[in-house]
């Protein structure tokens, strides 16, 4: 079971949270002008990263808010959590 550091509430156990998939995927601003390839990209294609993955979580049984996290999918270790609208933190030299 993961221990997740909600940016609003602090560390809480995983069952309090809902996973929200890959983070930083923007809906096309002008949907009517977007072709099928871009729609497929937006709806279905995912990075499925093997390594440091930016992802959304929601603290459903707590503050109820969405936030983002960086997690290493090879170890499940959380590297950072940050609020929606913030950029993913980047330490000098990158995550190792």
């Amino acid at each position, binding site marked *: *079971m993961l221990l997740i550091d909600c940016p609003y509430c602090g560390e809480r156990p995983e069952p309090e949270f809902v996973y929200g998939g890959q983070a930083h995927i923007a809906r096309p601003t002008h949907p009517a002008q977007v072709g*099928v390839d871009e729609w497929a990209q937006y709806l*279905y294609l995912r990075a*499925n990263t093997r390594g440091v993955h930016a992802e959304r979580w929601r603290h459903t049984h707590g503050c109820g808010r969405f936030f983002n996290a960086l997690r290493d999918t*090879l170890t*499940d270790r959380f590297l950072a959590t940050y609020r929606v609208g913030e950029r993913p933190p980047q330490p000098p030299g990158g995550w190792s």
Partner: protein
Amino acid sequence: MIRDPQQPSSRTPAMTPFSALSLLRQGLSGQRGWQPQWRNPAPKSAYDAVIIGGGGHGLGTAYYLAREHGLSHVAVLEKGWIGGGNTGRNTTIIRSNYLFPESAALYDHALKLWEGLSQELNYNMMFSQRGVLMLAHTVHDMQVAKRHVHANRAAGVDNEWLTPREAQAFCPPLNIGDIRYPVLGAALQRRGGTARHDAVAWGYARGADTRGVDIIENCEVTGIRLDPRGAVEAVDTTRGRIRAPRVGVVAAGHSSVILRMAGVALPLESYPLQALVSEPVKPVFPCVVMSNTIHAYISQSDKGELVIGAGTDAYTSYTQRGALHIPSHALEAICELFPMFRRLRMLRNWGGIVDVSPDRSPIIGKTPVPGLYVNCGWGTGGFKATPGSAHLFAWTIAHDEPHPINAPFTLERFRDGALIDEAAAAAVAH
């Protein structure tokens, strides 16, 4: 079978057939005459086709390429050891009672191959059509299950509706009344059942090897090289570069990683899926039982262990493990349904990495890169499809076009919108 992986063997393939007579002869001579069931060759510099992934689907693909399409200069590249991924990590359930005609045709193709596989491969798959019982606990469950029964029967796939009493008669340990979600009925596919998962990998490996296929273990693919026209030319591996005009990727949870080497993005996400087994007990459980609503899968292996399937973890991961609350939840459901198992101890718990597609249906076909083929997206339910998947993928690679059964399962369906949406219809919670 124990072999030294550093000692390549390149004897001419010569399969010793298994029979009552050969068992008797070996028994009388102290079991000292058995030969390794497949060679351990060093990779050659070029093949007619390379299959990436030495699980059941990949080994079966090589077997059918050699047996049905005359393509024997084939290599199977496996990062670890054959059958060590999801082929050895699943709960061995086989069924074909999917809702949509495309899916029912695909999984029933596999089920028909299962029915003759032990004889065909001369390898005991321990295939047991003991029946798969899928429980309904709510009015909505009953409606969905009955819709499945009717759809399956219309498609020529056996499935029948049982009342709670009939379900209990079929599976006596089942507690139908005294639980939070009483059993209101069940759908039964009598042709469904289980098979020995390791034997599937070994049987296909032996069959492929005998027909000249090189099975190369401890060989991780690190890159895919394209020629100036953009077609597949070679794969780079930890054991050197291997040229091949045709490359089939059957890498389950790592399919995204491999395809990205050729610049192809897949609509997949990889999740841990957990399973566990109990201590072995005498034969007490006659069939396979699945519950969608309270989420449990259970059967008993011939060794006596209860084999229990849990759900996927919430998040994408490549760790081959998951959180304890996931199997705990499955065990709570098992103990409700089968009170006699409450004092059993669990022996082992593990995870496999499953590649889940947006519509929960597989992708079997060509990619935008000429000569590169993909068979992935089997998600939480690939084992049951192993022979069918391998058979159709071999056809696709040999003909450079999909077989009619896998033609709907293209990568392009996510662009064109022709989804085969078993996400709600696969009859299990995802």
